[in-house]
Structure formats: C-alpha cells, structure tokens
C-alpha cells in the first residue's frame, strides 16, 4: 500500500486482501457443511465430489475435506499477521504463510478438476461447497469460482502482512477492491440467490399448511356464511378439500323445498380470507337427494380414505 502508482497500489491491495478473503470462504464453507451435517444428523448427507468416490471413502473424505478447509482457513488468517505493529512489517512466519497459500492454490485447483469431473459424471448433483445452499447442479459458475480462487491464492503468495489501510483515499480504494472482488464471487456463486431467498422467507399460499379449523372459523365469520346459514341442514360439512390457495367446504342445504349443496371456497390466508360461494341443486336421482337429505360426513364408511373433514375437527 505504499506503492506510488495507481496500478501498483491496486495490485498491492489486491494481493493484500486475498488471504483473509480466501480464509473467510474456506471457513464459511466448512461451517455450512457442518450445519448440513448437524441438521441431517449424518455425514452421509453430503453432496459434491465425494459422491464420485467409492462408498466406503465418502464419509472419511467428507470429514477430511471439512477439516482441511477449516485448518487452511485458520492457517491463512494466522499467518497473515505481521511481526510488528507498523505498516510494512514482515510476516511473523513467512515460510508458513507461503506454504499455506500454495496449499490453498493447490486445493482450489483440485476443486476445479473435481467440479468439472462432477459436472461430467453426475450432472444432477450440487457441488456441496456450502452445504444446503449448494444444491443446484454444478455449473460453470461454480467451476469458474474455484478457478478464480485458485488465481487469488496464487497472487497472494508474495503478499505482505496485512494492515488496516490509512484513513485517506487509500482506504476507499482498498474497500472498493474488496467489494468488487466480493461482488465477482457473488456473481459466480449460485448459493447467493438461495441464501437471499431463505432470508425472510414465508411459504406461498399454495405450499402453506393451514389448519382446517382456521378455515372453518374464518368461514363462520364471513358474510357468505351468514347468508346461507339458515338453509344449511347439518352442523358438519359433508366434504372438504383443498386445491392450491383455496379450501372448499360443502354443506347440505334446503332451498325452495329441494335438496341442494352449498359450497364455500375459502382462501388460505391468515387474515381476512376471501370467501366465495355457490349453491348446486341435487339431481332428483342422486343418492343423497333420494334419501331426503344429503348424507352427513360421519355416515360415510370411509371418510378418512376419501379425505372428508370429520377427522380434522371435533365431532359436535
């Protein structure tokens, strides 16, 4: 950061930021893998290139990879510190620092080859680089990211000890380089979109589980219910089913002296769900009409089997 020319300063800053940045990625990858293992309760739940190996080797390889990433990340961080407190001071363990950075470059180079192999042989598998976030099939972005990190590790081999930049335009330049590199890595990371998606995620209504009791409670508060309540002849609905964001509830009713069914469509929304309704007369030859009134749900022989509603709320 003491180089006079702008290109030289840029290059020096670029070299400086690589060890901590690579360390952060390695440690993050290891922690994400550990999180996946903890959630699933098994090391076997791993993804990525370990799947290319024979079964007996997958578990030890997954553990070895995770441990190696963490060790390498910590080593990169530790060896980047200087001996003294002044800018320009030498690394306290220059040989170890160089060795660690060479190891990181070799590691990412192996990753490039492994991901290319994975893409060719098992295109359906995610790279598993960041645990659950890396479930998308391995693509060129993941491979390019590994290649980029290989290059980053290579250029960092000769980088000096890390200091905070001076508080002038040099700090802004340094920060700009960090942001640019992070942005480039983000562009090459399919995991970013997955992570953003999980942040503040709520299920869309088609996938949301909402108790049937809430649907019935919402229905009974509705104007549509009050409009038809007098005609409804049973306490319990005779049928209830769901399609996407709507739950349909059917009650038998009498209308103008004839048997009919009223169907309510209740939107699966937690607040102020919309309710739509329609009334269908029963054909005179239908079994329900012939018996004088529609058969209530509790009289069906296989109500659980046909997904009727009696099992989901208490009997009156």
């Amino acid at each position, binding site marked *: 950061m003491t180089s006079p020319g702008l290109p030289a300063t840029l290059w020096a800053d670029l070299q400086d930021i690589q060890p901590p940045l690579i360390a952060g990625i390695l440690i993050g990858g290891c922690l994400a893998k550990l999180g*996946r293992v903890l*959630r*699933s309760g*098994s090391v*076997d*739940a791993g993804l990525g290139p370990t*799947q290319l190996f024979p*079964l007996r080797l*997958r578990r030890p390889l997954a553990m070895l990879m995770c441990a190696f990433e963490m060790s390498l990340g910590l080593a990169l961080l530790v060896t980047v510190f200087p001996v003294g407190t002044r800018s320009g001071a030498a690394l306290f363990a220059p040989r170890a620092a160089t060795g660690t950075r060479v190891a990181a470059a070799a590691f990412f180079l192996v990753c490039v080859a492994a991901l290319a192999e994975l893409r060719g042989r098992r295109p*359906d598998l995610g790279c598993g680089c960041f645990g*659950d976030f890396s*479930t998308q099939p391995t693509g060129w972005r993941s491979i390019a990211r590994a290649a980029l990190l290989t290059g980053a590790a290579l250029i960092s081999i000769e980088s000096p000890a890390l200091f905070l930049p001076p508080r002038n335009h040099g700090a802004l330049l340094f920060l700009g380089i960090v942001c640019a590199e992070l942005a480039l890595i983000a562009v090459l990371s399919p995991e970013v979109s*997955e992570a953003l*998606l*999980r942040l503040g995620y709520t*299920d*869309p209504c*088609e*996938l949301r*589980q*909402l*108790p*049937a009791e809430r649907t019935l409670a919402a229905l009974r*508060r*509705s*104007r*549509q219910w009050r409009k038809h309540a007098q005609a409804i002849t049973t306490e319990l609905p005779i*049928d209830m*089913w*769901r*399609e*996407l*964001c*709507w739950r*349909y509830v059917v009650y038998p009713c009498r209308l103008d002296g004839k048997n009919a*069914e009223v*169907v*309510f*469509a209740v939107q699966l929304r937690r607040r*102020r*769900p*919309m*309710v*739509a*309704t*329609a*009334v*269908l*007369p029963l*054909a005179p030859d239908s*079994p329900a009409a012939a018996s004088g009134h529609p058969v209530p749900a509790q009289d*069906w*022989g296989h109500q*659980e*089997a*046909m*997904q*009727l*509603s009696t099992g*989901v709320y208490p009997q009156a």
Partner: protein
Amino acid sequence: MVVQHGDLACCVRCAGPASAERLARRQLLKAAVHPPAPGPLGPGATAGMAAAGAVETAVARTGAAPSGTVSPERDGGGPGRSPAGFPGVLTGTVVDTSPQVITIYGPDGERRIALPPGAVVWKGGTADPTALESGDSVVVRMHPGQRSVADRIWANVGRVTGLIVERDRESMLVDVGRTTRRQAVLIPPHAMGRLQVRFPRLEPGYLVDFIGLRGRGFLEALVPATSQPAYRASEAPAPAAVRGHAAVRIAGSAVWHEATGPVDADGVRYPALDPETACLEQPLAAAGCPRLPYLSVGSLLEVRNECTGSARVLPVSGCAATAQIFCDRCVTCGTSPRGRVADLPMAGFVAMGGDLERGCFNATVSLGSRSPASPPPGSISPGSPSPGSLSPGPAPTGRA
C-alpha cells in the same frame, strides 16, 4: 426369504362407490364457485343458484363421466381394453401364444394381438416374443394407428419403490407406503452387482427403487430405476425454498407404479396432498423435493411427457407415498429438474410414451380442468393449451 407382514389400510382406491361419486362431484362444485374463464359453461356461470343450475344442466346434457371413471361407450372400448381407459394400451394375462399372435385376457375379455417382426418384448430384459408364456401378466403398447398390432410388450414387469425395513442375504422387505402391503424383493446373484452400482447401500433405512419381474408375492429385482440417495430416508435434506407463488407448470420426472385398483389405475398419484384433509397415505418421510402445491384426491392434474409431447388430464387418485423422498432427476430426454411430480399407473405411463424399464420420463404437471364435454381421463390432448395453472383461481364472488 423375508416374511411379509404389515397392516393394510384403505385409501380412495378401495373406498366405496359413494366415495367415488362424492369425489366426482368435487369438480362440479369447484366449477360452480370458481367457474373456468373460457369453456362450455360460459361466462355467466358465476356463483349462485342460476349458475349451479347451468352446471347441472350442462352435465346432464353431455353425459360426462365423473372424474376417475371412464365410460366404455364414449371411449370406444372393446374387449381387452385397458381398464384405465388409456387408448393404445392393453393390460391383461396371456392365455395363448404363437410366434405371430398372442391372446390376452383382459378385463373386457379375450383379445388377439398380432406380433409384427419389429415388436419388442421385455421380460426381465429384451427378449424374443417366444419368451412370452401363458399366464404372463402383460402390458402392451399398440402400434400407432393399429388397434390389434403390438408395438412393445412388457411381461410380468413390477416395481418396488420404498424404504428398506428388513434385509436378508438375498432378499429384503420394503415399506412402500402406509396403506400398502410391504413388498418382498428378491435379488438374484447375477443382478446384485448391477443393482449395487447404483444402490450401494442395501441396508434398513435406505431407499430402493427396483424394476424387475413380478413373482408370486415378491419382486425379482433386475434393473435399478434410479440412483440411490446417499442418505437415509430419515436424513433427507430440507426442501428448497420456493420463490413467490408456485410455478404454473412444475417440471420434474413422472414415474410409474403397479395400480392397486380401478380408481388407482384411472388416475395419478400426486406427492403433495393437503395434510389437513389427507387420507392415510401420507408420504413415508417428511422431506419434500421439490415442494409441490397442495391438492386433494379428485383434483385434476395435467401430466405432460416432455419427451413425446403427449399430455393427459387425470384425477388425483392418492398420495405418491414414496415420490417426495426421491430427489432424483430423469434423464430420458435431457436432464429433468430434481424431484418426482407424478406417479402414474403402468398403463397410463405406457400410454404417454414411457418405457417401463426406464422407470421415468421427463414431465411437467399443472392443475388440469375438464369441462363437462371434454374427453375422459384416458384421452390424449397433444399440444393442447394449458388447461389450468398452479396459481390461485379466478376472483371469487364474495368476500368475508
């Protein structure tokens, strides 16, 4: 040999005719409250008594068969026709064979099927037509445009998809769902190596999906239908989050199963039934891959084979108990997105152009709709526009 045991429960496929009638009525009720925008019901078919009457009148006039049932008269069914109402596919038992002709006894009687020189027979592997024997259970895909000429024949084919619960030296017991009897699977020594390439862990707790020859009470596993997930079924990864609303059409793979009854043979099993009103057929494990919008038994689902372009609207007949725990892809034509989106009966799978020994085809599903005048479940609608979408229905007529 592992001894079979396990309780049998009942789902829609063995519910009585009253249940089928109730399920069939669901589409009428739904159409009354959420009328489809275009169609024979007309734009005036809104909520209310008048609209409901119009629905009833339209149905009475066209005589449409209810969902999940097929009128043989309407479908041109003849002797030996598939009970599922899938034209071009015949299922039955071989009663007589000769080099050129086989006689098959199906639900509608005997039928003679010609075997042209190019006809392909699968019986544990590609075989000569002379390999067919009396008593073989067969699925026949007819030659296009020729009703009595076989194109492909699968004999005694079976499939077991599920969770290993017991393992013996050469056999295993597989849990295929809570309402279905556990399946005994026999692995012949000559097939063990081939199966273990893609299913290396044949231990309790792991998943299997084998295709083979159906024997008396067991399956002789011969072909791996997919690759085994590396984890135990109970350790499946969390399903991916879904952005915004679920997609209009969901792509994945369609697989097949051995139908267990007429209703099952007419419909399609769907992996995501509403847990609040679901029947006993819940998925084996809680994992969902991908997460699918919730539907119910009786909902209409359009299944499209992306490899052949054929599409059918089928009623959901039950829960695909094992489909959601396999997060695999189908590579029949290109690589499908991850996950199984439909589980078809054998006849339906074959009718849509699938080959049983492959185990899957690349498919998309969307919420289907069938107007009262539209064809029954087995009919082909190639290239037809999407009949529905997996998005919320039209605006309702009332508001709380």
